[in-house]
């Protein structure tokens, strides 16, 4: 038979020193920056370096690896370094930041309340997605709190979408009040009806 046989030879590799990562980010090719970004999460003190490099990086693939490394570090520092990208004018950076924060679970939880109260409606909208990271009861509390005061229908729609999946009976009166406030917005009224029906149908 023409098929051939070869054996893989797994080898362990140690992370490079931090200075090497810094140098790669400053002067390396995109491949070298990708490799540096991928290994950085294992190196103490690398979060700040990653955060700074991310602000300069133009290559989408390398940015993705930087976000992943920051997500793997998953400390308050790495969360704080990612959060500003939620305000980026570039959709890729906003989405990249959101996906990275979504992968950080517990580390991002302490920031959720503040994000849901942010002055930027786009940030509040993205924060609704992040709420999926916390246990359902806590997520419901956070989203109901937002819905009681939120003025932007798009933000409400984002919260309603999540509540439709994780919400319980306590969310129903909040949804009803939101529907009253936005009765001029047919899309939101429809979304709330769907969410409320789904919640009521749950055992």
């Amino acid at each position, binding site marked *: *038979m*023409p*098929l051939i*046989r070869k054996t893989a030879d797994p080898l*362990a*590799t140690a992370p490079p020193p931090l200075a090497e990562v810094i140098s790669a980010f400053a002067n390396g090719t995109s491949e070298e920056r990708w490799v540096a970004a991928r290994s950085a999460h294992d190196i103490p003190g690398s979060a700040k370096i990653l955060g700074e490099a991310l602000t300069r990086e133009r290559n*989408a693939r390398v940015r993705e690896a930087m976000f992943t490394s920051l*997500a793997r570090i998953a400390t308050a520092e790495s969360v704080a370094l990612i959060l500003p990208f939620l305000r980026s004018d570039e959709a890729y950076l906003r*989405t*990249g930041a959101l996906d990275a924060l979504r992968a950080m679970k517990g580390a991002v939880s302490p920031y959720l309340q503040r994000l849901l109260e942010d002055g930027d409606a786009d940030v509040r909208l993205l924060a609704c997605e992040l709420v999926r990271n916390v246990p359902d009861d806590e997520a419901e509390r956070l989203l109901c709190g937002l819905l009681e005061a939120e003025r932007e229908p798009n933000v409400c729609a984002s919260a309603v979408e999540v509540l439709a999946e994780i919400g319980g009976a306590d969310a129903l009166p909040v949804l009803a009040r939101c529907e009253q406030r936005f009765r001029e917005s047919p899309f939101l009224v429809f979304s709330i009806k769907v969410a409320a029906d789904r919640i009521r149908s749950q055992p």
Partner: protein
Amino acid sequence: MSEFLYRRTGMVFTEAKRFYVERRVVERMTATGSGSFASYFAWLRNDAQGEIEHFVNAFTVNETYFYREDYQLSCLTSDLLAERLRAKRRPGPIRIWSVPCSTGEEPYSIAIWLLENWPLVDEYEIEIVGSDIDTGALEQARSGVYGKRALMRLSPAITEKYFAPAQGETWKILDDLRQSVSFSRVNIVESAETRAHGQFDVIFCRNVLIYFDDASRRIAAENLYENLAPGGFICLGHTESMSRISPLFEVRRFADAIVYQRPAEGGNG
């Protein structure tokens, strides 16, 4: 316990899987003669008698069969290999990775499918590697012995051509075919382990990312990206979408299947 398993494998078992987890822990406690959960956990954490490997093996799902999701195998011989051959700049084998390969049905299926359906099979060297985290499954894969259920989608003619009857209602892959596939252990969220396997033209990574959480999926996607030659393809399970996991890959729609592609050099970085 679920946290321990997650750290070791990237697999996520939530409260909804409590029964599944408990049943396997009890099995391992019985197998190791542990009188209490605390003593078993200590045994596990110390990796006494290689318990971590046994523990991980107990949690992997090894239910599969030959020619499963064969529309992707059709796509392989109809489109993917031709495109890879056009893109190859250096001579060398066509490398195909089945990961996770479980008990070997998938990598052997690829080998059989190529022998049966790819007219150019005699003109190129083809290296097929099957890898899995479950060392018990890998041992079964290497033995190449399968029951009736695993062969249910193969025609009698194919079964007769590539298998020999073995004990009971089992069949053994012919030695030539068995030796044409190599097997190795790998944890796809461990970059050092995946990198050691080199780059492939096509990767079959089906129905494993669904067991991972967002963080592990991102890591696995980046590892798999590195394991693909530029322009190489990755096939996921039919319910999985790489687009929801990572922006690193491009979606390619072929007549038989949707697959994902690492951009060729010069694209996406």
